[in-house]
């Protein structure tokens, strides 16, 4: 009954989509660390990454420039959201819930605008490398999977360097640890806030671009991705970016195994159940809380 090849395939697919969840989860952490806000518009960034790339390619722009341009546009969108939605609330000392709600509303607005602009038909972008999958012991490793995993690892390494070695990265970490102390040290906290949104949006966009060739994109794929990313962040221990990535992998794995064992209808239930289990039993996540 248990086909090892099929199981291995499932695990591989799970890890692959887990990388995507992980990248989104890191995005959550970056913003949360800089501001204490859970940015519910994160999913919109993911959707926009794939969607803008598609739109550009429709205009005959090649893949790589399309993707890069999309990332830049989405990063800017992140800053825009920070300026017109988050910052006014922040300045007016709104409660945590109000800010979460506002970012959720922002996600809805972006979704609907996208719907108006491109319609409700699912869209796609082509796989990055149009070659048949590599076969390893019966398991098919698609090139897109390699792209996803490879890019994720490169990004993780780059983020690691960014946070450890660069001035801006360390400034962001300082904000995460103690905002007031950071401000006293001359770090412009508001600029850090904008930067964290830009970075988070860019990560989301990259995740979206990587995953769209394997599944379609549409105006409303944002919300499920946001939830998965959030679950990844919780599982990894909210506030720890690399924990979030681990959390994403775990979530992808759990989902894949659930589908394998119980059928595809329960994919979302599996994810939500993982979330609840962690919230109730171990809210500090697998690695324990960062603070």
């Amino acid at each position, binding site marked *: 009954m248990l086909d090892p090849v099929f199981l291995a395939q499932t695990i591989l697919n799970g890890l692959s989509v887990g990388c995507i969840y992980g990248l989104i989860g890191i995005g959550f952490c970056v913003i949360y660390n800089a501001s204490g806000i859970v940015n519910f518009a994160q999913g919109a960034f993911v959707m926009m990454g794939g969607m803008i790339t598609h739109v550009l390619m429709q205009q005959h722009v090649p893949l790589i420039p399309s993707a890069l341009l999309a990332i830049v546009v989405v990063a800017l969108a992140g800053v825009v959201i920070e300026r017109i939605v988050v910052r006014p*609330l922040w300045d*007016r000392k*709104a409660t*945590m819930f109000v800010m979460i709600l506002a970012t959720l509303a922002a996600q809805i607005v972006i979704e609907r605008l996208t719907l*108006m602009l491109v319609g409700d038909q699912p869209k796609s972008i082509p796989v990055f490398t149009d070659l048949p999958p590599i076969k390893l012991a019966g398991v098919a490793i698609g090139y897109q999977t390699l792209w996803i995993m490879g890019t994720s690892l490169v990004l993780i390494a780059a983020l690691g360097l960014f946070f450890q070695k660069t001035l801006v990265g360390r400034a962001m970490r300082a904000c995460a640890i103690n905002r007031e102390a950071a401000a006293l040290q001359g770090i412009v906290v508001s600029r850090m806030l904008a930067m964290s949104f830009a970075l988070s949006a860019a990560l989301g966009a990259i995740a979206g671009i990587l995953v769209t060739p394997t599944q379609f994109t549409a105006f409303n794929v944002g919300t499920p991705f946001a939830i998965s990313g959030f679950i990844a962040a919780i599982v990894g221990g909210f506030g720890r970016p690399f924990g979030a990535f681990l959390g994403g992998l775990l979530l992808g794995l759990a989902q894949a195994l659930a589908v394998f064992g119980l059928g595809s209808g329960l994919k979302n239930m599996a994810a*939500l159940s993982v979330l*609840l289990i962690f919230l109730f039993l171990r*809210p500090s996540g697998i690695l324990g809380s960062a603070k």
Partner: protein
Amino acid sequence: MATSPATILNSPKLRLDHLPTALAVAVVAYAIIDGGYIVTVVGFALIYAVFVAGLNIFMGYAGQTSFGQNAFAAIGGYASAVLTATYGWPPVAGILAGMAGSVVCALLIGMPTLRLKGHYLAMGTLAIGLIVYEIAVEWQSVTNGYMGISGIPPLGIGSWELESDRAQLIFLAIVTGLSLWATWRLRQSRFGRALVALSGSEDAARALGINVGRTKLIAFVISAIFASLAGSLLVHIVGFISPEMIGMNMVILAFTMLYVGGIGTTTGPLIGAIVIGLLPEVFRGMKDYQDLVYGTVLILILIYAPGGIASLGRVAPKRRTAR
């Protein structure tokens, strides 16, 4: 008694802000008299007012967070739908059964979930709402999945049914009125004070002998009962239920109404429901952009008028709450 205007405006008694409430009631009265298309719109708004009133108790008075009350609307709605359409139960029995189910679920869900704080609570409740939505979609044998259940009989007792739209609207107006009356009664009571105390300082409430966990749970269950009632009413009025009716749309719509009307006020839910409910009718052609407008309105209200319509003029203490 020499009191300054600020004191009068700040007085809790004036939370029943009169003019917007009077206008909202006037709209309902007009709809009843007119009997035309507006009856449908106002009826829908009244059902949502009941839902939002429940939300207001948990989020407005007690200062808690729940992104998932639509779960209980789903339980109430589907219970009513299945019991009346498939098993021929009388509507009232179906409504009560739905409420009973919601109470049980609220207790089971509330006990672990309400221990969470801040964004964990937000996400936990969101997960609950999404899980119930998924169940509505996947449990095809009972809920018929995306296709939904139709042929739900209208409200009535025994052989007497509320056939006409106007009769249904009058009934809804009565139910909504009773719901708001109940929330007002609760607010004025010992229990209501304990709720609002929770939103001020849980530690201080504990230090005064209040069982915070139990009080939160009771508020959650009450809120669930309102949501369940709203869900049941919705399916009887529309005659149909599908998962989309009790999904994230409901959540966003309800929050928009809650904040526009005025969170934490007695008649805020009614005002918000009427204003938002009428919005698509006032701006013709808005139908296609409904959610877009709601989202934008919500953001603007949250930034510029977080107290909503019912509390314009009230001085809100400006401090950052750590929740």
